[in-house]
């Protein structure tokens, strides 16, 4: 064997050890920090494409049709008229199988297919992943004797199998029995892809249901339903009522005379209603917003109606009220603490942040004062006292995604209650 062949072999072996040892032995990844990325995974694909570019850059004497830089990419581009969906993806996969019985270059094809999955929208489809694993020739990569078992048998293919499982893991796809059977057929029971499958089967069920506020994967795109779901997500009170004040007008191509009206959905619980009824009309209430709420990967914005914190002298003392049937003979209210003994103290000795009460929340399509004024008008139907209370709009800019610290507006703004006949005069205090 010449020295060139020897160095190439040595380099390949080094990469094999480094790749497998780096990636497979360290278990399932939980965080997205790419500390340990195997060299092998990227060396093989990158090296191949660089070789291709080196080959195709010098002008060739013969007229050749321009080759794609990545091999087999034309397989994916062969249905430009058709939309990119699962059927065309599977068709491309099948076409690769028809090329040769020996499935030459299947590793590169699988890496390319993994990259293309997101475009075709199939990254969370388990059947597609199983089809992708099906591309591997079966029974070839299984180790047959102890020497093959000691040294990583077919390291590039094992890395490729791990890459498929890693993409499944990062999209939260749970493998099933078919995946397990395929991996046993392809790599054998003691291989690294099989180990990774074991880890997926161990850790996924442990973390599947730990979210106390789950958001379904397929959220509806309808804005009213999204707003309803979002408002219910935020409001801990289960007896709160969601009201749709305005339905978005359908967008027709004729171009209606009035501009399309945005949706307005509000939520209010009975406790909040009672608190608003008790609210002192001399103090203003504020419409603050918009604040952002993330539902999986969709960001929606909401506004809140709240009042400032009452100064300490005006706060209601939680004393013992005398009900009507006050009686000297029997205690009308018992204040027993059943669980705690004298030495138990589970309170944190810190004053928690106190903020003013929230009276209602809403999600609207537009964040301007006109839309929110419609919301307030809708709220007035169920809260008649709202008509007497001055409402101040503290709206941030159109892209106010963050909780803005209104440090400059700590003191309550002076309300101007010029009340007209039946509509309320509103003042806008815009913040830049």
């Amino acid at each position, binding site marked *: 064997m010449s020295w060139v062949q020897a160095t190439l072999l040595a380099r390949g072996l080094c990469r094999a050890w480094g790749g497998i040892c780096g990636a497979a032995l360290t278990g399932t990844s939980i965080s*997205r920090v*790419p500390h340990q990325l195997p060299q092998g995974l990227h060396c093989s694909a990158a090296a191949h494409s660089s070789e291709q570019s080196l080959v195709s850059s010098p002008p060739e004497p013969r007229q050749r049709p321009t080759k794609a830089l990545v091999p087999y990419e034309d397989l994916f581009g062969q249905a430009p008229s058709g939309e990119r969906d699962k059927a065309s993806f599977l068709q491309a996969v099948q076409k690769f199988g028809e090329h040769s019985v020996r499935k030459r270059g299947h590793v590169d094809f699988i890496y390319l297919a993994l990259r293309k999955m997101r475009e075709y929208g199939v990254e969370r489809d388990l059947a597609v992943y199983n089809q992708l694993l099906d591309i591997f020739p079966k029974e070839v990569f299984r180790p047959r004797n102890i020497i093959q078992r000691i040294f990583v048998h077919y390291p590039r293919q094992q890395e490729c199998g791990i890459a498929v499982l890693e993409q499944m893991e990062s999209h939260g796809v749970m493998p099933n029995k078919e995946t397990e059977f395929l991996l046993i057929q392809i790599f054998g029971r003691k291989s690294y892809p099989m180990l990774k499958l074991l880890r997926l089967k161990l850790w996924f069920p442990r973390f599947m249901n*730990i979210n106390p506020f789950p958001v379904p994967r397929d959220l509806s795109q309808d804005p009213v339903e999204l707003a309803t779901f979002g408002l219910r997500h*935020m409001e801990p009170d289960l007896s709160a009522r969601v009201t749709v004040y305005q339905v978005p007008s359908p967008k027709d191509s004729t171009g209606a005379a009035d501009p399309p009206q945005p949706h307005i959905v509000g939520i209010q619980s009975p406790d909040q209603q009672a608190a608003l009824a008790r609210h002192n009309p001399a103090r203003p209430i504020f419409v603050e917003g918009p604040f*952002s*709420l*993330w539902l999986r990967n969709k960001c929606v914005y909401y506004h809140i109606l709240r009042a400032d914190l009452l100064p300490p002298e005006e706060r209601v003392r939680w004393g013992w009220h005398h009900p009507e049937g006050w009686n000297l003979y029997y205690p009308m209210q018992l204040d027993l603490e059943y669980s705690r003994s004298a030495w138990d103290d*589970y309170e944190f000795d*810190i004053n928690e942040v106190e903020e003013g009460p929230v009276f209602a929340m809403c999600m609207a399509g537009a964040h301007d004062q006109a839309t929110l004024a419609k919301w307030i008008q809708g709220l007035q139907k169920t809260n008649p006292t709202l008509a007497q209370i001055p409402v101040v709009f503290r709206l941030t800019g159109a892209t106010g*995604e963050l909780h803005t610290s209104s440090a400059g507006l700590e003191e309550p703004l002076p309300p101007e209650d010029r009340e007209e006949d039946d509509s309320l005069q509103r003042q806008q205090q815009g913040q830049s």
Partner: protein
Amino acid sequence: MALFHKVLRGTYILRKCSKPTSALHPFLGIRFADYSSSLQKPVASPGKASSQRKTEGGLQGHHQKEVALDITSPEEKPDVSFDKAIRDEVMDHFRRLKDEIVNHWKGPEGRPLQEALLEQAKVVWHFRGKEDLDKWRVTSDKTIGGRSEVFLKMGKNNQSALLYGTLSSEAPQDGESARSGYCAMISRIPRGAFERKLSYDWSQFNTLYLRVRGDGRPWMVNIKEDTDFLQRTNQMYSYFMFTRGGPYWQEVKIPFSKFFFSNRGRIRDVQHELLLDKISSIGFTLADKVDGPFFLEIDFIGVFTDPAHTEEFAYENSPELNPRLFK
């Protein structure tokens, strides 16, 4: 001994002037980056530090503001010498050492033993002022070339801390990272006299308590143990914290038995429970692969004993993955 004194002098030079000049001490050339990142503001009193900085002559852009504000009047001569500053620092450290030794006689951390033993709820970090923010540092994937940004500031009315920024999962084009996009807020390791590393002892508590207000994103809480004897830089115990979003404050209780062990970002096969007697730092990470702005408001972080929680450890080891444990 002389070398130790020189090292000590060198460290105090760095503490006094925020600009590390290699001319002062060539020995500490390597550790400059570490110190400059840990220093946000000079610790000494403004009068001494500003005049001392002036006499130093090494002015950075971000110091020019402070120097401009401290305009000394002509009759008052800045009377600070470099040696005096170092002497003050040394005396300060010796005082802290004395306090530590005396407190050890009184009880753990200077509190009487019966108070420390019967304690069932303890506030470890609260955010009521700017000095509370100095106990934390923020990192993002900018260190590896990504595009996420993260900032930490005091929230409304100085009553909470607001961690906000933008997450971007665009991978850096450095040829070795395929994924990216994380932001983290990590607490600084508590230091004692002479900048010794100390640790928290939470062995009588069993639940972590956080009062936060998020925007619906899932966060990860990471706890790191003390690296006194064993090198445990890349090992941490983590669990998820799901925020609800909305204007209401959310109370998150995570029992310590739920934390799983991971090394260099990957869950290990062999899991063991988090031992609470030497905790070095806690951190919050956001890496949910969704691009966009985020915020998290934290009121305080505490630990308490939940009497209803009797679980010791939530994850059992599997004989398929670890046959050697079950021999």
